[in-house]
Every structure is written in C-alpha cells, then in structure tokens.
C-alpha cells in the first residue's frame, strides 16, 4: 500500500511556519518515513503541474500557512483544496489573518504607494507601481494581482482544521500529523490546541490575585518587571485571559507578555473585542476623565488588540478598505 500523501504550501507569511516544520528536528524523519511529501515549495522541487495532474482528493492532508492576498495564493489554495481530503490552516496568518492581516487598516492604494514610492530606501523617480501585465523588451511579463484586502484561509476555501500560533509549536504539528495518520481527528473545524485560555495553564497563575485592579498601563520599556509575577498585576498588558492556551508559554517563559497569537477560545468570535472587554474591566477607576486618561495610555488599541486576528474579526478591518 502506498503511503499517505502530504503537501505543504505558503501564502502571505513570513516563513516562520515553514521553520516550525523544520523544527520538528529528528521527528521529521519519523514523519518522512510515514508519509510521502508531494509538494513543499520551500524545500522540495515540485511544480504546480505535478499537483494539477493528481486525482481529486489524492492528497491526504495539506498544511497551508499564510493569509491570502495575491491571485496566485488564492489559485493555489483552491487547487490544493480540490486535490486534498483535509486542509489544515497552519499558523496565525492562515487561521486568523495574522500580523499581515493588519494591512486591512490601510487601503490598497496607500500600501502600494508606501512600499513603492514613499519608503526612504526605495528609489523610484518615475513612480512606477507593479502592474499585472508589463511589456519589457517586446515581451510580456505577468505579476500576480494584489487583492483589496487580506483574507484568512477559510474566507477563501473550506478549512477542516486549524493549527494556531505564530508559529505553531513543533509538538502541535507532530500531534496533528499523527492524528491524521491514526485517524484520531476531533470534529471538523476544531482548533488543534488547548480549549481553555492561556491563564489557566500559566506558570505565573499563582501570583495572579483574585481581582486584578490596575490604575495605569505600563509599557515594557517603562519599568523593571518581576519575572515571576503575573504581568497584568504589574500593569503590563498580557493577552492571557483572551487567548487560547497550548503554546507551551513560550513568551511567558522568556519573560515577555502574551500577544495573542493562538487566537480566541472556542466560544469567542472576536478576540480583540473580548480582550478589550477583559482589559477594561480591570481598570481601577470609576471616573470618566480618569478612564479616558488611562485609555489614552494605550497608543494603538486596535493594532494591539487585533495584532493577530484583524482579518478574521467581526469588522475585518477599517471601514472603506474591507
């Protein structure tokens, strides 16, 4: 019997998710022994045609990382959907839009102008912007179209499972692949990590008082913080209360507060709004003026609360851009 086929693909992402697969270290040999990797642009030389030639549903599972912004990303995602029995959104960008999803606060035109005209390191006196078709020395060159907004993978194709994180831990990836091979998958649509919020498993949980009350939000550069005490109790914004656990507390262990890359828990639709709600409730003030002052100590609330989840949020981005 032939081995199950696995494919990996990347869209709008930084490459960190690919790295997380390589971080399986020796375990990757175990995976490579059990499956055939039929497509992995970052590491193996297969072409789109190889996939097109396959029968529908021939690939057992495809892990796609990155959000969708370009024509070719959408095309590849749709092709892989057709050829795969399972599609797994791999990492925050495919799952929630990720950091690249923050582009939905800006219009398409402004992004292109910024990247190709205004950035100090760019020299573009003729003000040329990328075009889908360009004539150069009598030949026609083609570029992929740049969509109006960033979309999550499940806004473009049907997704069966989600591997959260920026990037997901190698342990979660290994467990997901083993679950596929042993046919022990949870119900469709599940996020393959903890069900509860990070605070539940946090190593600093004991130091969190029953009622956290803070008068002022502090930014990391402003204080020397205690490496053993709950971040929120020290006035440092930490996303633990509104973020899914299962990340092995990588940031907390490095003495940095959580920023929410594992996304919301199962019962929450909009992570940013939920976090706003949690954070506002611990402010120790009842005075309108004082509350406004405290709110002003967060310079960019939307960018902070939606750092990883803007494209998947209720509003999806700024009005007029989405």
């Amino acid at each position, binding site marked *: 019997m032939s081995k199950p086929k696995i494919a990996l693909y990347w869209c709008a992402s930084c490459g960190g998710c690919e790295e997380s697969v390589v971080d399986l270290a020796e375990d990757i040999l175990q995976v490579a022994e059990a499956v055939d990797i039929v497509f992995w642009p970052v590491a193996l030389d297969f072409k789109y045609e190889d996939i097109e030639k396959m029968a529908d549903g021939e690939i057992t599972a495809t892990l796609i990382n990155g959000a969708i912004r370009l024509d070719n990303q959408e095309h590849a995602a749709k092709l892989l959907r057709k050829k795969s029995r399972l599609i797994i959104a791999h990492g925050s960008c495919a799952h929630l839009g990720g950091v690249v999803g923050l582009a939905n606060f800006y219009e398409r035109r402004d992004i292109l102008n910024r990247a190709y005209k205004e950035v100090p390191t760019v020299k573009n006196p003729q003000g040329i912007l990328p075009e889908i078709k360009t004539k150069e020395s009598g030949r026609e060159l083609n570029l992929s179209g740049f969509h109006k907004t960033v979309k999550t993978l499940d806004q473009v194709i049907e997704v069966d499972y989600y591997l959260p994180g920026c990037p997901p831990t190698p342990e979660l990836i290994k467990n997901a692949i083993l679950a596929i091979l042993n046919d022990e998958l949870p119900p469709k649509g599940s996020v393959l990590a903890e069900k509860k919020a990070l605070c539940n498993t946090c190593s600093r949980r004991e130091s969190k008082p029953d009622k956290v009350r803070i008068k002022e939000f502090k930014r990391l550069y402003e204080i020397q913080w205690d490496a053993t005490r709950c971040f929120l109790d020290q006035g440092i914004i930490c996303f633990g209360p509104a973020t899914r656990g299962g990340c092995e507390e990588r940031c907390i262990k490095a003495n940095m507060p959580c920023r929410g890359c594992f996304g919301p828990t199962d019962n929450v639709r909009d992570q940013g709004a939920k976090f706003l709600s949690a*954070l506002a409730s611990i*402010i120790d003030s009842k005075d309108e003026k004082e*509350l406004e002052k405290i709110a002003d100590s967060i310079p960019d609330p939307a960018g902070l609360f939606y750092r990883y989840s803007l494209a998947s949020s209720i509003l999806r981005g700024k*009005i007029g851009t989405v």
Partner: protein
Amino acid sequence: MTKQSHHSEIASPSVRNDKEGCFRKGNKAIMSSFEPKIIGFLCNWCSYEGADSCGRARKEYPSNFVVIRVMCSGRIDPQFILEAFKDGADGVMILGCHPGDCHYKEGNFNALRRYTLLKKMLKQFGIEEDRVKLDWVSASEGDKFVRVVSEMVEKVRVMGPLMLIQKKQLKNHREHRGNL
C-alpha cells in the same frame, strides 16, 4: 417603513462602489431619504423600566430606535456592538443605571470602562465616536429616555449611514464562522 427602505436602497447596484460590495459613507443618493437605524442595549432594572415609563405615559420616541433588553449594562460584550454595526446599525446606544444605582453594584462601571476604550478603538476602524453612546437612564426618567434617544437619532442622521460590507456576504461569513 422607512427603516426597510434604507436597506433596499443600499443594496441597489446604482450606489455600489466596487466589486467587493463596499459602500462609502455619505452617499448623496441615500442621504436624501436616510433614516438611521439605532440599536439600543437597555439594562433590565433601570433603563428598560425608563423606556416602559415613557410608553405608559404615551410619550413618543423615534421609531429608528430598536431596543434589546439585557440584564445589566455590564453584560454588554463589545462583540455585541461590533456585530450590531456589521449587521447594519448606524449607531449603538447603551443605557444603564445611574452610577451607584446598579442592581449588581458595579456592572454599569464595567460598561463605562469598556465604552471608554471601545470608542477610542472604533475611531481606528473609521467609526466615528458619536456613533456609540453610553448614558444613564433610571426607571422614572421617561422624559430623559425620549430626549437622549431623539438626540442620538438626530446626530446619526446628520452623520449619514455607516456602511460596511454587503449583507449577503455577511450572512455567508457568519454561517461559516458560527455565531457568537
């Protein structure tokens, strides 16, 4: 009804601005007959009673105001407010007990804390601060209820419609994602 005609107009192709079904604010074709839709979250113990006392006294308030009763203003998750805007509200009001009068002691203060931060955040989404309003209405303040609701409706009428994504797209999105 005026409220319904507002929606049938924004769905007509003549005012669509692009292929993704996004609409710009303040479109003149819509402005002329614009009736804002305001969603009001009213706490059960004070403000809903206040609205009731307004009704008992046969006072009138604008029909643009759609009331949702909640047990406490502190129960209002910011997600409800975002959902309201996404589903076509032009403004959202939160009415709760006066400070010190909350049936659950502190719920209205939680509402105030969230509202302060939410207003600031919504500005970054391109939603003007005045489209969300928190106010205190007690059970006996039928007159104040009429006043704050009428003021809100007039304010939003001047601001014009808030239009996000086309309704059909939203429906698909919600079905796919599951509800709150």
